[in-house]
């Protein structure tokens, strides 16, 4: 039976690049997938593109391509990534430019477009999933809308012999499912096979999170060589059975426990994981260790795909101002609390929609009730964050924190502050037919 080896070269936009190079060099893989697009990233990228029509793709695209393009061309590895962000066409042009600069030729770089549904969603009478209100109520606060596209257009790009495929918003597992559908000729309605392929995609989409990243807990879960964590490889057979592994000698490990954590990561009902391709059922998945760093995955199934596609809507959400200051030594906590009182009074009259104080080291993560501690800490860091529709008002927060140097309690130090524009993400469901992906090929 034929096997396909797919590598995962990134689990988020800013991920390490050297593990991807290692995969391209030593992974004996046929496809290298980079998942780089978080929920909010594309809305920020859409805004960047409004200012500069050649921008809007992943900020590390150039660095990644320079690192892996030559190796992949030499080793016959095809690259699939959502690094196109809000501008897959510009990403493809940039990749062509890099390929030429590297002296490569004969490469086909595809851009997959069509996920931008801003115009459709803006006036389409759609409903916001989170609170049931009409999309129209967002008015000009709505920045963008991007639909989660499935594997189909990537499969088509592979059929058009693309060596590099750059997409915008695509469901993460679909990036991995596409080469399986293409190479094995899986039917778009063989739900069980698509379910199996989707589980493989889900296990790989966060890269290092299945090879021992985000896992270590000293004394309980010790992971070897995390500084040189290897990224995962899935070896998938034509019948959908799969094995998760990594490059021999790389850091980390692949175990039943790492696979179990990643299988359930960000999953709600494990019997119904919805993607544009299939309703996947993870509930009967079993992991078996067939060797060191070799975990067999079986038992995934699938049912028909949903009729609607999810679209993420980027919404302007005002400005967040933040400031922090530290206190240490005897009475650190009391001085931080006094600083908090002063700030609450100073900020009371400003037009802030929300304001939040935390004592880092005391209660900032889980609040007072879950954070009960008996000892007095040597150091405490006060943090204040607030939101305003006005940038000028939000900026008062870091200013007031800085003013504590000369106007606040004794011994404050290490002030940091920032004011940033925020984009919130809401979602809506749109008919599948309203999304029409297109493929554009750049020849090198």
């Amino acid at each position, binding site marked *: 039976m034929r096997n396909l080896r797919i590598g995962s070269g990134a689990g988020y936009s800013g991920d390490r690049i050297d593990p991807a190079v290692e995969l391209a060099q030593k992974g004996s893989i046929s496809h290298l997938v980079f998942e780089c697009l978080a929920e909010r990233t594309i809305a920020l990228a859409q805004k960047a593109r409004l200012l500069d029509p050649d921008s809007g793709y992943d900020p590390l695209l150039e660095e990644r391509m320079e690192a892996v393009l030559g190796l992949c061309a030499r080793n016959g590895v095809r690259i699939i990534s959502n690094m196109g962000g809000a501008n897959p066409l510009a990403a493809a042009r940039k990749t062509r430019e890099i390929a030429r600069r590297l002296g490569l030729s004969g490469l086909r770089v595809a851009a997959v477009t069509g996920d931008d549904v801003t115009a459709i969603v803006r006036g389409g009478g759609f409903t916001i999933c989170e609170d049931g209100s009409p999309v129209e109520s967002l008015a000009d606060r709505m920045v963008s809308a991007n639909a989660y596209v499935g594997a189909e257009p990537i499969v088509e790009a592979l059929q058009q012999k693309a060596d590099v495929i750059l997409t915008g918003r695509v469901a993460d597992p679909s990036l991995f499912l596409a080469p399986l559908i293409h190479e094995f000729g899986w039917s778009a309605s063989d739900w069980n096979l698509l379910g199996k392929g989707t589980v493989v995609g889900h296990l790989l989409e966060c890269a290092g999170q299945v090879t021992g990243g985000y896992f270590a*807990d000293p004394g309980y879960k010790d992971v070897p060589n995390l500084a040189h964590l290897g990224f995962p490889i899935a070896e998938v057979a034509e019948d959908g059975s799969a094995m998760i592994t990594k490059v021999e000698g790389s850091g980390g490990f692949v175990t039943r426990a790492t696979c179990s954590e990643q299988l359930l990561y960000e999953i*709600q009902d494990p019997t119904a994981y919805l993607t544009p391709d299939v309703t996947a059922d993870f509930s009967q998945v079993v992991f078996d260790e067939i060797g060191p760093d070799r975990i067999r995955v079986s038992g995934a199934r699938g049912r028909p795909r949903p009729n609607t596609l999810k679209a993420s809507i980027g919404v302007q959400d005002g400005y967040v101002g933040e400031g922090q200051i530290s206190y240490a030594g005897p009475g650190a906590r009391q001085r931080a609390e006094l600083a908090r009182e002063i700030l609450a009074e100073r900020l009371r009259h400003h037009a802030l929609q929300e304001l939040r104080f935390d004592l880092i080291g005391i209660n900032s993560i889980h609040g007072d009730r879950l954070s009960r501690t008996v000892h007095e800490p040597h150091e405490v860091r006060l943090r204040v964050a607030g939101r305003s529709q006005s940038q000028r008002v939000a900026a008062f927060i870091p200013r007031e924190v800085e003013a504590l140097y000369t106007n606040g309690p004794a011994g404050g130090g290490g002030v940091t502050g920032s004011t940033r524009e925020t984009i919130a993400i809401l979602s809506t469901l749109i008919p599948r037919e309203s999304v029409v992906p297109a493929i554009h090929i750049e020849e090198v």
Partner: protein
Amino acid sequence: MILREIAHARTGDKGSLVTISLIAYRREDYALLEERITAERVSEHFAGLLVAPVQRYSLPSLGALNFVLQRPLAQSVTRSLALDAHGKCLGSALLAMQI
């Protein structure tokens, strides 16, 4: 004994939802998790942080439970003013629960 002695956890997020997987180190401890770590107890553990009862899904073939927690809409990943806007540290707080 606290949960950390027999199980490990990973936290994920989707908007204002937080998901926590709880996985028994040893298969034979799964029954204890299933019996003791009910949705009600987890709701109680995180009281004040959530706006709806916790949902629990059982995965006996993995020896795992999966919890879905609903935070206030204003505390979704992209809106929250919290230091840990994702809620990624919540799973570690679950491991502090007595069993």
